[in-house]
């Protein structure tokens, strides 16, 4: 069972302010998600090696070669706010 406390804890870690109503809603949602994922537990995994990945692929590497970076102006279009050079936020220094 997912508790309201767990939802509050996760929201806090993600710096989200949730209303009482939202907490209620997400608790139910999260419960459904966990139940769905739990179906996997009913499978018979006898003789199958534990793995974090579904594909048998490994060592996907890149050469250490510099590629041109993105245009800053383009990148900063995604910023909620910027000073033209950097992403600009409310003060984080306190």
């Amino acid at each position, binding site marked *: 069972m997912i508790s309201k406390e767990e939802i509050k804890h996760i929201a806090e870690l993600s710096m989200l302010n949730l209303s009482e109503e939202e907490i209620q809603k997400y608790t139910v949602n999260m419960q459904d998600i966990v139940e769905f994922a739990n179906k996997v537990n009913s499978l018979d995994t006898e003789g199958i090696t534990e793995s974090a990945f579904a594909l048998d692929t490994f060592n996907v590497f890149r050469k*250490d070669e510099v590629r041109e*970076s993105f245009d800053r102006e383009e990148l900063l279009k995604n910023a909620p706010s910027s000073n033209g050079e950097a992403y600009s936020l409310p003060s984080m220094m306190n």
Partner: protein
Amino acid sequence: MEYEVIIGLEVHAELSTKTKIYCGCSTEFGGDPNTHCCPVCTGMPGALPVLNEKVVEYAVRAGLATGCEIARESKQDRKNYFYPDTPRAYQISQYDLPLCEHGHVDINVGEMSKTIGITRIHIEDDAGKLVHDGYTGGTLVDLNRAGVPLIEIVSEPDMRSAEEAVAYVEKLKGILEYIGVSDCKMQEGSLRADVNLSIRPVGQEKFGTRTETKNLNSFRSIARCIEFEIARQKEVLESGGVVLQETRRWDDEAGEGYAMRTKEEANDYRYFPEPDLMPIRLSEEYIQNIKDTLPELPESRRARYISEIGLPEYDAGIITSSKHLSDFFEAAVAVCGNAKSVSNWIMTDIIRIAKDKGVEYNELPFTAENLAKLIMLIDKGTISSAIAKKVFEEMVETGENPEKIVEAKGLVQISDEGAIKEVVDRIVAANPQSIADYKAGKDRALGFLVGQCMKEMKGKGNPQILNKLILEHLNK
């Protein structure tokens, strides 16, 4: 009450790859804000990371150089936390399958040598930089550093004092420089340490509660922070309080640490396997190949300097503690062949100059070849040691070739007996009292006469000949 101090360190070193860990953006330090960035390192949804092969190679190199076992199978994990220096809201690190485990390095503190265990070395990406915006009072985010590859080297809690912790970081820095995986510029933040520290009454088996002080970027701040934290924890315990498990920061200017957050508010990182990055599998051949190409490590150079060159243990330890200094030593010896003299210059003058100027040993204002030439000028008797010091100061200022300095300033030593005798005769004749003093057993009089002659010859007289001639006079 007597306490035992328990210290473990987490050292972060930026790897000196050309590009970031998961994209082709440059890792160069000091670019204009957000000019070494792309959708991968700014955390745009849908952008896919691809691991830089050099990062794996460098981490394995570091592992082999510190006696670690290298994992044949390894993976990367997401470490989730929300902070604006990490635009994806997670760091890609390694959780349960790091690349390297169970290593060690040996340190020397005074006469004592000690082995410090290394728990693990894993790869991860660095965060961006937050800068205070003086104009709006807000915070600006520069993501040039976001995605620069790091190795995190986690030690066992094997250190018992600030001296040991500093010796350990110095040793690690030396090793990483030698194997060329990090430039270890502490002032640029490319090597930094987190200090885990607890104290317990001597004889008690159970560890005390530990605190973690983050992001120390100089040997001095590591030492001061440790002394501060030991004193603070003692005071807490002795006034009947309990040490809280907390994350702390060190304010180097104020010379004190302060709590950032306690365990209750501490992050719960919810690690899980990074689905965008496939596992890393390393073959025996791959690992052997890196092992075979490891350069000579400080330990081995140190032993060679002691046994083959005959340097004192202390000097050999100091010189090999930095690859740059050791390279400088070898380059100078290769030219002049006088290892003892090169070592003496390093121990007395060069370390001081580097410290005064705040430069690394590969940034000295003169070359190893020019130091070697200076030593050859002394060895050949062209200049005296006293004059050599003056020439050296000139080299520090101008970086000029010592032969040219000696020539331009007319500093060639006078070894012509006739010329020296002429001065000696004159000085001795002018100082009858000194002769009387000397005959009365006052040896100081000899020194006085030598000094007077030297002054007359502007320091250029050959001291051996000068001494000999004065003594001849006095013992007549």
